[in-house]
């Protein structure tokens, strides 16, 4: 029995300004699968991830979630995904705890402090919970942002833009463990990274945007 396809991309094309970053990009993702998007700087990795979240419309092509277009089912699709972009989405004047509470509440999850503290503790920043985000170091901010993942085990699709940037070795290990657990329980992960990561998954798919750009030039 094959893996049920949850997310399907059909002939995606992205044009930024005058440049065509990629086109004819098709792939599908089923539960338990990890999709790694690779490519040189400026090859459109972040653009692809933003298209996959539904933040940006692709110039051509479509994305389907469980067979239905994500454009028509926008809120339903949003409830099924967590996106952590290269911005940490932390308000400088709120504490790490308050930031996480707001994020959880907006995602429709319970926002009680105990659960939030456990999630922050997962990334070793529970002791910073009461500090405003502006006094945290770059790595601590990233950890506080990633703590959302520890709350989101029930959310099937994780889309992560350079999740390993600014993290130290311990946090990288913790994140890899979290990703592996999510994949093992049938979740899906899409990520971009320049680092080699060891994440155990049923299947690791790769989308190489450089190859797509090369194919475009040849065509």
């Amino acid at each position, binding site marked *: 029995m094959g893996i049920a396809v949850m997310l399907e991309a059909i002939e995606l094309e992205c044009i930024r300004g005058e440049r065509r970053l990629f086109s004819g990009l098709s792939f599908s993702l089923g539960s338990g699968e990890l999709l790694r998007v690779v490519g040189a700087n400026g090859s459109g990795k972040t653009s692809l991830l933003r298209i996959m*979240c*539904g*933040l*940006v*419309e692709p110039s051509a092509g479509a994305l389907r979630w469980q067979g239905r277009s994500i454009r028509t089912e926008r*809120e*339903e699709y*949003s*409830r099924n*995904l967590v*996106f952590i*972009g290269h*911005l*940490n*989405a*932390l*308000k*400088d*004047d*709120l504490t790490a705890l*308050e930031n996480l*509470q*707001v*994020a959880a*509440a*907006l*995602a*429709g999850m319970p*926002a009680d402090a105990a659960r939030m503290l456990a999630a922050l503790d997962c990334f070793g920043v529970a002791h910073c919970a009461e500090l*405003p985000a502006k006094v945290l170091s770059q790595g601590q901010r990233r950890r506080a942002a990633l703590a959302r993942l520890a709350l989101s085990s029930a959310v099937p699709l994780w889309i992560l833009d350079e999740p390993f940037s600014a993290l130290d070795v311990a946090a990288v290990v913790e994140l890899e463990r979290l990703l592996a657990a999510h994949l093992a329980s049938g979740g899906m992960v899409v990520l971009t990274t320049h680092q080699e990561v060891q994440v155990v998954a049923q299947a690791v798919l790769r989308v190489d945007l450089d190859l797509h750009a090369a194919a475009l030039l040849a065509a």
Partner: protein
Amino acid sequence: MIRALAWVLRRDMLLAFRRRGDVVNALVFFVIVVSLFPLGVGPEPNQLRGMAPGVLWVAALLACMLSLARLFAPDHQDGTLEQMLLAGEPLVVLVMGKAISHWLVSGLPLVLIAPLLGLQFDLPGNALAVLSVSLLLGTPVLSLIGAVGAALTLGVRGSGVLVALLVLPLFVPVLIFGAGSVGAAVAGTGAEAHFLLLGGFLALSVVLAPWACAAALRIAME
């Protein structure tokens, strides 16, 4: 849905409380502009009474506009806005929360302090009451329409001037009927008609502005 709205409100009020300086700015601007007029024009009571409605309303309108630039731009910069777009709650509801908190922070203080400033213009008691009610009905409209302008100009260079150009024409009816109601009270002709029209503007903007604002934010994110 109500829970998400409450959390947006709570978040923005907390942020406003932690950045009190920004909030006080608009209020101080309002007080200074309004207080300078009697000093500049001179102490002729009839003249002051005549110009009071216009001065108070124009100053309130400009004070409201001052804070529009900060409505979405900080959230846009730190990435919290894109998380709101992905919240799984209707964006319209979250935008409504932002507009309400903008009004609570930059509209409501003007409503509360305006009667006090009206005393400088020798406005009679009933005109002060009318001034408060007209601002109470009119400033939420300014916040709602302003939110659309702020969303449309998000990420644009020199957005402050652009917001003014976009929203000022839409503010003009509110200004005319807001100031008109106070003028009518001073002249003794009753302000009900003005209130009804202001209420109508408010109802219309509550219904339409959040949708327009949400659509503009989606475009700005592209």
